[in-house]
C-alpha cells in the first residue's frame, strides 16, 4: 500500500504532533486526572497508525523498522517490572519506594508516574508494532495476489 493523497498526508502530518502530544499528556497526568498509561499508550499508537494509514505501511517500515517496536515494547515491560521489583527489594513486591508528596501536583503518587510512563511506552509500541506487521503483511499479500502464482 503506497499511502493516500497529498491532502491526507499533509493533514496527517499536521495532526500527528497534536495526537502524540495529547498521548504524552494523558500518560503523564494519569494519577491526578482521568487517563493513564493505557489510554495514553493507545492514543500514541493511534497517532502512529494514522501515519501508517496516510503514508503507507512499506514507507513507515522502511523508515522505522518494526524491530524497533519490539525493542521499545520489551523495554517498557522491563521498566514496569523493574519498578515493581524495586518495591520488592524495598519491602514487598510492588511496594512504594518513592516519597508520596501530598497534593495535586505532577510529582506525586510515588512511583506511579514512572509505572505510567513505562506502560505508555509499552502499550504504544506494542499496538503500533502489531498494526504495522499486519499492514505490511497485507501489503505483501496483495502483491502476491496481483502477480498470480508468483513465487516468493
Amino acid at each position: 500500500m503506497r499511502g493516500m493523497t497529498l491532502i491526507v498526508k499533509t493533514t496527517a502530518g499536521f495532526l500527528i504532533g497534536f495526537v502524540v502530544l495529547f498521548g504524552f499528556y494523558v500518560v503523564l497526568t494519569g494519577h491526578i486526572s482521568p487517563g493513564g498509561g493505557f489510554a495514553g499508550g493507545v492514543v500514541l499508537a493511534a497517532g502512529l497508525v494514522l501515519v501508517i494509514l496516510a503514508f503507507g505501511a512499506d514507507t513507515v517500515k522502511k523508515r522505522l523498522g518494526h524491530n524497533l517496536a519490539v525493542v521499545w515494547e520489551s523495554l517498557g515491560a522491563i521498566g514496569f517490572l523493574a519498578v515493581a521489583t524495586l518495591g520488592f527489594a524495598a519491602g514487598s513486591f510492588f511496594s512504594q519506594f518513592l516519597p508520596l508528596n501530598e497534593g495535586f501536583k505532577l510529582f506525586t503518587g510515588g512511583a506511579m508516574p514512572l509505572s505510567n510512563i513505562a506502560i505508555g511506552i509499552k502499550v504504544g509500541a506494542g499496538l503500533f508494532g502489531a498494526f504495522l506487521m499486519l499492514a505490511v503483511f497485507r501489503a505483501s499479500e496483495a502483491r502476491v495476489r496481483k502477480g498470480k502464482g508468483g513465487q516468493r
Partner: protein
Amino acid sequence: MAEVMVPLYSILAFMLIAAIIAVETRDLLSSVLCLGAVGFGLALVDLVLKAPDLALTQVVVEIFAVVLLIRMVVARQDMTEENVADTPHVALVGAMLLVIVIACFISFQALVPFARPLMRMGGAYLEHGQTLTGASNLVTAVLLNFRGYDTLGEATVILAAVVGCYALLRTRGLKSDAGNDADS
C-alpha cells in the same frame, strides 16, 4: 435516581439495537461500523455512570479496534456474508439463550440492587487512597498501587498478544530445509 435511569436505559437499548444490526447486516463494513456504535454506547454509559477514565480508554480502544477491523474487511473480495446456519441449529441456540436470560432475570433479583453497592473493598480505597498512595485519581491509585499486580498481568497480556501476532505473521512455520539450522 430517575434522572440517571432515563439516559441509562436509552443508551443500553441503543447498544442492544446496534448490536443486533451489527450481527444481522449482510454487509460486513456496515456491520463493523455498527460495532463501533456499540462501543461508543459503552463510552456514553461510562460517562453517565461517572467513569471518565473508562470513557476515555473505551473511546480510544474502540477507535483502534474499529480501524483494525475496517482495515481487515476493506479491500478483500467478499464484503458480504452468504451462508447462514440451518434452522434447527438456530432454534437450538435461541432456546438455550432464552433459558440463560430467563434464569438471569429471575436470579438477578437477588443481587444487591443497582446504585446501592456494598463498597466494602472500594470504600476502604476511597477513604485511605489519597493518604496512602498520594494519587488523587483513585482509579489510578487502585490500578497502579493497590492492584498494581493486576496491571502487570495486563501489560503481560498485551506483550503475549503482540508476540503471538509476530509469531502468527511469519511467512513460514517450518524452515524450508529442515536440515539447515544455522541461524535459529
